[in-house]
């Protein structure tokens, strides 16, 4: 083992010797420099390996042979080894990244750089308080020196602010050290922590020690100086600051936190929380990339502070959680700062340039997703453990605030991702030198490796669970293949998965099998239109498969963690899918925010639900102890963001409408059912008996009814065909929510029928309209018209789908309506039921509108040569139509298994079958007979008209009576715009964008608040000093008061 003392020795030695090299021998100097960094990394690495592999125990090294306090002691334990490795790797890669700068500045910069890394190393290792001070100073001097790399005014200013601020902070620290020495009689940290003197000396001493360390971590709001550093200095410096420096400082705080005792921990946690929330808020309106990253870094630091502060509660988990957050921040932030350096532009929008560099784009998106704390990245597991632990100890408020902060962080991060993926307004090109990209690749690889490590750690025994995810990952690798080939691979893979589901769930858990059928088979059907695309279609298949794998994993999840991971993977996948649409940046963004908000409430709900339970299996949903009502409500809200219930629905129309033609059916017909599945799981957890008068199901029933009403009403007033369908999805999901909330056998039967029907007809509708949009290149219905003559097949499928949607007999939609009526009357939910029925009638408005405005009326000039929709769009539509016909003519075939499924939860057999006639205690219905009667009748009457009408002459579009005049143009004759004007006049106020305005108000006021908050960063070095002093004083006073 090489003792850690060599870290100092090598660094100092080389740094000194570098000074001797003249400018002529730059080559030797730089090789020596890189050698030194490699050596540091190697030393750290070998310790790490020793700790990981064997029984290496913590080692303490004393510099001059004396015991402390007469010598400086360095400690090398597992934690130190990990952190040193992180710091040195960051140092080494950063140096690689800075290759050109080193070439330019030569030995001076190398010396500064080496000293910085060494300083950070020693900060981690040292157990001597004064030594800590010295190396903190060395690190901050070196850091300030690094600010001079970019020789701009701004950078210099930032360096100056940084220097003055850290100087003051260390001055405080020095005072603290003196007092600590005075009262504790030692500078040896290990002794100080045990010393009774410090405790006796009261709070002031520990305050003076801990407060500067907190200030070093740049707590909000006394952190303007740090932000400026992030913003103005060379991105590599930002990376070091965010990756290495924070890591070291946080560890120091962790080391010394025990000095403060109970109160100290509390203060750290609270200040951490303030930092986390405040910093994220202030970051909201940021348009400068690196400054925004700075806000995010500080927020992450705040999170780490929270973890450190909650140490007494978290116990052994502290380090694990803190490490999870730190390592994610370390890898992702470094990568992002370096990317920022490559792009070298300030505005967030300029990141659109990454579209030209798919690998970098992939890494960028991955980094941001990791930073937002989404699975499967380490930070997620950290947050998960943190929140579970908080729930177990009954800290609901903390959970709420932490999740709120995370959501706010996601706001600006995903806005940025949106620009990165979609924005095309860039007008420059970037130069990706190998030495600049390689460090980023390494960080990316490291992140992926850690994902593997964490997944293995948590799910080592259920590897099979992640097979779909692996398949999605494979699609990432295969993304260079042509789209058609990838489509085949994807369909084959999904087919295999479908077989797996068939094998595992059919007969075992039919309810899951049913949803697997919707998810996977529906997925295959909606993948078929992908054959129309030529080229590579980069990014589509990974995202789609990510979504479908998330959906599949949702089915096979057995505990809350698996479920949540699946949920988030599905969300990420669908987000990446939705954002592919032409104008969907905004909508994908709001989709992501609502999804994340929902996911976070769900997470909180899960946390409460598992609290007090032995495990986190899904069965905890039926045994909630801690705040059971709130937990169930939170979980329900989480699912309802996905089903777009009233109040949480505003994301859906845009997201579904602006997505690509073949994505819309995926997200509408299939993805929404994930929320339904979740609600079903929750309701199963609540249980049939408890639910009879459960306030939650009652509320959800009303909510479902109102959602149905508003959704359908909204659909009736749309001009955009896909938006119309999207609003209709909101309405249909309202029915489904309502039906399941009834919580009786019949109600669930109706719910499942609706679910199956909606999956089928909404897929047909979106595919049909997708085909039309594919040909006409517009969404506006009034720009279409008369397409029945050009696309008869599409018209037929859409007509059937609409008849199903409207619930008109003889098609299967009526089965749902009939069951629903019986269920409502038996449950005695008359008023809600009537609202839903009203909604059902309003469905006619948009049903007619979409059929008429798109397919009937007048064909437009430019559509005169349009062709039928591509065969690949038609195939799935006709397959689904086949399903609908089967369901319509033989409802027993499908409803009976549904009934058996539900019997497991609602044993009463409310629906009986008598020779094809469905019987309830109220009514009866024979689908087959109705169907036969209607078809025969239709045939006879058609014959009657055929007989009586002689010599039918086919006429053209404008051969209509027009009060003696002639129509001018199809555009002015096709009465499709604002079709329901009268209705709008009477009832339009119901869909006035009130809820949208509420959300907009929330959005704007949050942004304004953030904007207001960040005004404290005036840019004046002196103000920042005032902040530091004032912050210290206020915190001190508050602590005094509270004691």
């Amino acid at each position, binding site marked *: 083992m090489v003792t850690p003392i060599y870290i100092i020795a090598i660094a100092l030695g080389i740094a000194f010797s570098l000074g001797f090299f003249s400018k002529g021998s730059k080559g030797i100097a730089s090789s020596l420099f890189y050698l030194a960094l490699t050596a540091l990394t190697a030393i750290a690495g070998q310790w790490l390996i020793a700790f990981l592999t064997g029984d290496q125990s913590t080692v303490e090294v004393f510099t001059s042979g004396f015991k402390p306090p007469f010598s400086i002691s360095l400690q090398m334990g597992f934690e130190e080894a990990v952190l040193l490795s992180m710091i040195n790797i960051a140092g080494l890669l950063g140096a690689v990244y800075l290759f050109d700068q080193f070439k330019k500045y030569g030995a001076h910069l190398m010396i500064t750089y080496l000293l910085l890394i060494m300083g950070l190393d020693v900060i981690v290792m040292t157990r001597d308080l004064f030594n800590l001070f010295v190396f903190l100073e060395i690190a901050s001097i070196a850091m300030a020196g690094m600010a001079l790399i970019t020789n701009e005014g701004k950078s210099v200013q930032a360096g100056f602010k940084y220097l003055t601020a850290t100087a003051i902070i260390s001055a405080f620290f020095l005072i603290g050290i003196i007092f600590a020495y005075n009262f504790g009689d030692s500078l040896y940290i290990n002794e100080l922590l045990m010393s009774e003197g410090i405790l006796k000396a009261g709070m002031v001493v520990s305050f003076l020690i801990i407060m500067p360390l907190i200030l070093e971590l740049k707590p909000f709001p006394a952190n303007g100086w740090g932000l400026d550093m992030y913003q103005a200095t060379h991105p590599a410096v930002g990376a070091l600051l965010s990756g290495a420096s924070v890591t070291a400082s946080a560890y120091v705080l962790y080391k010394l936190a025990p000095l403060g005792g109970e109160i100290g921990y509390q203060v750290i946690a609270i200040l951490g929380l303030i930092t986390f929330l405040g910093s994220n808020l202030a970051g909201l309106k940021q348009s400068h990339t690196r400054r925004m990253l700075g806000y995010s870094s500080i927020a992450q630091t705040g999170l780490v502070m929270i973890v450190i502060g909650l140490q007494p509660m978290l116990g052994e988990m502290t380090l694990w959680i803190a490490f999870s957050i730190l390592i994610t921040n370390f890898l992702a932030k470094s990568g992002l700062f370096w990317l920022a350096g490559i792009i070298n532009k300030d505005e967030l929008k300029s990141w659109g340039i990454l579209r030209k560099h798919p690998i970098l784009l992939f890494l960028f998106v991955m980094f941001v997703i990791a930073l937002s704390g989404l699975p499967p990245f380490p930070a997620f597991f950290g947050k998960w453990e943190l929140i579970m632990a908080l729930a177990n100890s009954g800290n609901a408020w903390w959970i709420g605030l932490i999740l709120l902060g995370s959501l706010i962080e996601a706001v600006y991060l995903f806005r940025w991702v949106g620009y990165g993926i979609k924005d095309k307004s860039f007008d420059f090109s970037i130069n990706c030198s190998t030495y600049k990209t390689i460090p980023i690749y390494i960080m990316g690889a490291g992140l992926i490796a850690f994902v593997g490590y964490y997944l293995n750690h948590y799910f080592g025994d259920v590897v099979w669970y992640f097979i779909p995810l692996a398949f999605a990952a494979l699609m990432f690798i295969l993304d260079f293949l042509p789209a058609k080939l990838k489509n085949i691979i994807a369909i084959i893979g999904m087919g295999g998965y479908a077989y797996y589901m068939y094998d595992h769930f059919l007969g075992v858990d039919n309810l899951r099998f049913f949803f697997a059928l919707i998810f996977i088979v529906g997925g295959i059907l909606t993948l078929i239109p992908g054959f129309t695309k030529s080229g590579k279609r980069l990014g589509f298949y990974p995202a789609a498969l990510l979504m479908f794998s998330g959906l599949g994993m949702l089915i096979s999840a057995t505990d809350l963690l698996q479920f949540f991971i699946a949920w988030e993977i599905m969300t990420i996948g669908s987000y990446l899918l939705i954002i592919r649409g032409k104008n969907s940046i905004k909508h994908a963004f709001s989709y992501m925010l609502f999804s994340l908000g929902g996911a976070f409430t769900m997470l909180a709900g899960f946390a409460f639900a598992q609290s007090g339970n032995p495990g986190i299996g899904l069965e905890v949903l039926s045994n909630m102890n801690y705040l059971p009502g709130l937990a169930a409500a939170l979980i329900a809200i989480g699912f309802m963001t996905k089903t777009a219930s009233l109040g949480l629905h505003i994301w859906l129309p845009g997201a579904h409408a602006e997505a690509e033609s073949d994505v819309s059916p995926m997200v509408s017909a299939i993805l929404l059912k994930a929320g339904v599945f979740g609600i079903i799981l929750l309701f199963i957890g609540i249980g049939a008996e408890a639910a009879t008068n459960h306030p939650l199901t009652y509320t959800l029933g009303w909510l479902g009814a109102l959602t149905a009403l508003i959704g359908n009403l909204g659909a009736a007033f749309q001009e955009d065909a896909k938006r119309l369908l999207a609003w209709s999805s909101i309405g249909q999901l309202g029915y489904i929510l309502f039906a399941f909330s009834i919580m009786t056998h019949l109600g669930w039967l109706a719910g499942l029928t609706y679910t199956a029907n909606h999956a089928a007809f909404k897929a047909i509708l979106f595919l049909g309209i997708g085909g039309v949009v594919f040909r006409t290149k517009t969404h506006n219905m009034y720009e279409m018209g008369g397409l029945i003559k050009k696309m008869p097949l599409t018209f037929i499928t859409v007509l059937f789908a609409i008849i199903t949607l409207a619930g008109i007999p003889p098609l299967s939609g009526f089965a749902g309506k*009939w069951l629903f009526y019986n269920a409502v009357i038996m449950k005695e939910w*008359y*008023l809600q039921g009537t609202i839903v029925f009203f909604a059902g009638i309003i469905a006619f408005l948009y049903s007619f509108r979409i059929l008429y405005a798109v397919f009937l009326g007048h064909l437009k000039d430019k559509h005169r040569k349009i062709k039928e929709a591509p065969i690949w769009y038609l195939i799935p539509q006709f397959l689904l139509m086949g399903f609908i016909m089967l369901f319509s003519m033989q409802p027993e075939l499908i409803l009976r298994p549904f009934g058996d499924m539900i019997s497991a939860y609602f044993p009463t057999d409310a629906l009986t079958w008598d020779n094809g006639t469905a019987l309830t205690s*109220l009514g*009866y219905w024979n689908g087959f007979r109705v169907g036969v009667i209607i078809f025969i009748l239709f045939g006879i009457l058609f014959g009657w008209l055929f007989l009586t009408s002689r010599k039918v002459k086919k006429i053209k579009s404008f051969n209509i009576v027009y009060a003696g005049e002639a129509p001018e143009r199809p555009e002015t004759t096709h009465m499709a715009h604002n079709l329901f004007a009268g209705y709008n006049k009477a009832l339009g106020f119901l869909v006035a964008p009130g809820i949208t305005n509420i959300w907009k108000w929330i959005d704007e006021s949050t942004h304004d608040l953030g904007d207001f908050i960040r005004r404290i960063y005036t840019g004046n070095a002196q103000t920042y000093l005032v902040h530091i002093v004032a912050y210290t004083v206020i915190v001190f006073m508050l602590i005094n008061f509270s004691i």
Partner: protein
Amino acid sequence: MENIAAKLLWTFLGLLIVLNWGMLKTSIVRKIVARVGGRYGIRWYQPWINLIKLYGTRGQLSHGVMFYLGPVFRIAGGVGLFLFMPLIFGDPRWSNFAFAGDLILLLYFKFFGMLGMALGAGEGGHPYSAIGVSRGLSQYTTVEIPFTLGIIALAVQYDTLSLTEMVAAQQGGIANWTIVTNPIASAALLFSMLGIFMHAPFDLVKAPNEIPIGPPTEYHGSYLGVLRTNAAIMHITEAVLFMNLLFGGANNWIELIIKTFLIYFITVFIGVVFPRFRIEQSVRFFLGVPLILGILAIILIM
């Protein structure tokens, strides 16, 4: 087999009776209205003449498949409604195919014709057709609310959704009729009936002089004949529905004829008195008093 043939025969006979009664009813009503206005009015057989003339039109035009099928959908909706409607209580010969579905089926099957007709009119390409359909659908949505509330109230009152059983429960004198036993629900249903028959003041859909008769603007000849045939059947069938729901059903044809005539005459009477509503007015109207009555009916059974 014999059974089915007999059933079909009886049903067809019933259809013929209803059709002709529907035609006759039209002329009687027109005549009454004329007499009120001091006119002589149309001849009692005028509807048949019109029908013959329409079916005898020499040349027909078609705007397309859906245009052609629109009337077929419409009449299939009307005749279908007839088929699922029990006509005479206690007589299996005149109960048609009511065994295939209950009240809910009737409720939803009405839309079959409406949607088909709307689509046919849509393909006709006349802007007024679309306006008419838009008005019709708009009005219909709100008409259905008091209707549904009333139906639910009755379903709860009689604990069934089967129309036959509802009629059975009303046997034994006027005191057992729903209109007596549940006047509030009946009032809601009668209000919605005005909208369902689309007579004045709720006839903006067809508004003859504003949007030349609305959806069927482009329909002529046999198409119009089919539509008129349907109207005759539909009016009676719907009146039968209300008769079964509110007025104790019918035990024989005479009773059916008298009751349906009186039921239909309610709407005519109101139509003669009141002027036409604009669409948003009628929408608001149905969301006013009728809705309150409906909710009241629901509250009373809760």
